[in-house]
């Protein structure tokens, strides 16, 4: 009896939140896995398609626990977009099987040629570091496969979609220039980015930062003790003033490292594996940006990094 009541109460409370999935309105349905991919689809698809993301803001894609509505969405999708490079873990083999069956499934990372991808620090047997959106130039390469896929499912709007693709690529290029300028404010000896997990190698390569994470490329693997002590030594040796938390990862681990090494914890977290809430505005350089979008996210990150390290 008791247990039944407890369960009922919790489920009612939890379920009462309601589904965030939009209702059907006749437009082609695009299902995206991560928030970054969802944002890309929205930017390029505009009003021509209905985009639904499986993972919400702040959700860690490495440890995603699937739920019931995912099935129906995957079933009804006219196009499924995912990040790829094993970011989504065992989900990826399902998506690949769907693609093999003739379903319209596209990995946005397919737009990035192999030689521009990084191998992760650990010996990952040919697998690549999936966090390529850290570099806007690479994220720009993801536009083409998405544009191509969207044009197929919304042929009436093909022209508009292509134009949006062009415009977005230009926007990303501008973003890249702005980031480079802004980050130049960080002195040479401080260009070290330490975060909760190895998500920023592409960012680091693009903008000349040394990068180190407490956990490895996937948060599914526990941070080893040696990783932690090594990181602390590294922090002390490099004389870095600030380490950064990430929104999708509990900050306990990195906070402990910060305390031990005597460095500050950045007041602003970085967005690594997920964007913020759509509509979550922030002011950067006098302009407001939506941290629920890729561009807003990157601006926020750059701003936070500069503030923390200068």
């Amino acid at each position, binding site marked *: 009896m008791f247990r039944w009541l407890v369960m009922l109460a919790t489920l009612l409370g939890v379920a009462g939140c309601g589904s965030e999935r939009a209702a059907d309105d006749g437009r082609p349905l695009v299902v995206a896995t991560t928030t970054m991919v969802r944002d890309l689809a929205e930017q390029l698809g505009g009003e021509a398609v209905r985009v639904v993301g499986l993972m919400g803001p702040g959700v860690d894609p490495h440890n995603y626990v699937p739920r019931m509505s995912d099935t129906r969405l995957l079933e009804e999708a006219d196009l499924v977009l995912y990040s790829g490079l094993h970011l989504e873990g065992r989900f990826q083999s399902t998506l690949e099987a769907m693609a093999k069956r003739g379903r319209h499934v596209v990995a946005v990372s397919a737009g990035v040629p192999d030689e521009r991808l990084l191998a992760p620090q650990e010996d990952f047997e040919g697998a690549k570091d999936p966090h390529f959106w850290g570099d806007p130039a690479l994220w720009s390469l993801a536009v083409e496969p998405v544009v191509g896929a969207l044009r197929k499912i919304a042929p009436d709007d093909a022209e508009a979609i292509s134009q949006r693709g062009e415009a977005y690529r230009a926007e990303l290029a501008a973003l890249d220039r702005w980031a480079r300028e802004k980050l130049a404010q960080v002195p040479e000896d401080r260009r070290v980015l330490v975060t909760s997990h190895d998500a920023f190698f592409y960012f680091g390569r693009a903008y000349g930062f040394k990068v180190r994470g407490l956990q490895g490329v996937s948060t599914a693997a526990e941070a*080893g003790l040696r990783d932690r002590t090594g990181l602390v030594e590294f922090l002390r040796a490099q004389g870095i003033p600030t380490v950064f938390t990430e929104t999708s990862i509990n900050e306990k681990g990195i906070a402990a490292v910060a305390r031990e090494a005597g460095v500050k914890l950045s007041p602003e977290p970085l967005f690594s594996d997920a964007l913020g809430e759509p509509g979550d505005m922030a002011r950067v350089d006098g302009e407001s940006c939506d941290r629920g979008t890729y561009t807003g996210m990157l601006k926020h990150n750059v701003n936070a990094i500069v503030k923390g390290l200068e």
Partner: protein
Amino acid sequence: MTDWLAPSLASAVVAALLLGVSCGLLGTIVVVRRMALTGDMISHAVLPGIVAGLAWSETRNPLVVLACAVAAGVAGSAAFAAILRHTRLKPDAALALVLSVFFALGIAMISRLQPSGVQAFLYGQVAAIDRNDLKLLVSAGLLTVVAVPAGFHLLRMVSFDPMFSRITGLPVRAVETVFYVLLTVTIVIAMQAVGVVLVTAMLVTPAAAARYFTRSLSMMAALACVFGAAGGVAGVWISTLRDALPTGPLMALAVTAIFALSALLGPRHGWLPQVLRRRRERTRIRGEDILKHLWQIEENTGAPAERTPEQLAGVFGTSRRALQRFSALGLLDREGGLVRLTGNGHQRATELVRAHRLWERYLTERAAYKTDHVHDTAERLEHWIDEPRRRLLAEQLGQPTEDPHGSPIPPDETEVAR
């Protein structure tokens, strides 16, 4: 070289020590009360509470999470009791049900709320243990170290004889509740180090290992603490040898290794001591058979018997160890390559024959054995009876002088001497 004084390593070591001690103490009670898998139930049942706490508390306050977890644990225990009371199901089924259904609730909640930080509880993250965790661990550890020995007497009584305890007015309910809450708190803290599944290892394995060394509850608890702490620290050390080695599982494997060693070498029920014990017994029996053999030859031929080891081997099989042992004990004389009875040996042999023939009498007279069936049984029994019992046996039978086959029963030599 690993810098042991580095705070992160030091906190991991301190955490391992404290956990080892707390879990060792609580684990002793748990193992002795055959509640070993209750810890497993608790660690799985608290998941809904942990998820609720993490999702609820914006600042991820560990005390909030702990409070929610304990509430879930208590709910689990109530559910367990309810199942036992209201259904015909046995405790093992009830345990399995609470464990898995509460866990399912936790997973359902995670799939809706997707809070970050659950991973640390599911898999353990020793590297993420910070000062707050240590404070909590120290408090819980102190409480355990103080409460358990202080309440030891009480716990022992309640554990072994709950009925009596209740009758004598001991606060059984209160003691059980306090123990359960302490156990739950320790488990939730331990989960952050070793993960949900392996908490049971830290609780049960050191205590089970300690069992191989003693029967005393207090000794067992002390040893369990030592094993738990040692295993925990060893696990921490091993995980520093390479990058990305998971500390939690290594701690569990370390305490298992200690358990394996105990199972092999521990004086009580340990494999090696048992093997050695049995071998000693076999040697003794072989030697005694040889004594009897020589005595009977003397009885038949009238002259003291001498045999070579090879001749004896022909009758009994290789007996080198028995011969060595018994000549060292002064029961056999091996001069000139021949084996003879010494005076003491002769006396011991007489006792054996006496025992054998008394047993034969007993078996035929009192146990309805047929005369031609008694020899083998008596042959075995003769090695396991000592003097006072021989005397008792003789008395019971009315001091007989002959065995069922007509052979004379040698009189009790000590009595004769008197």
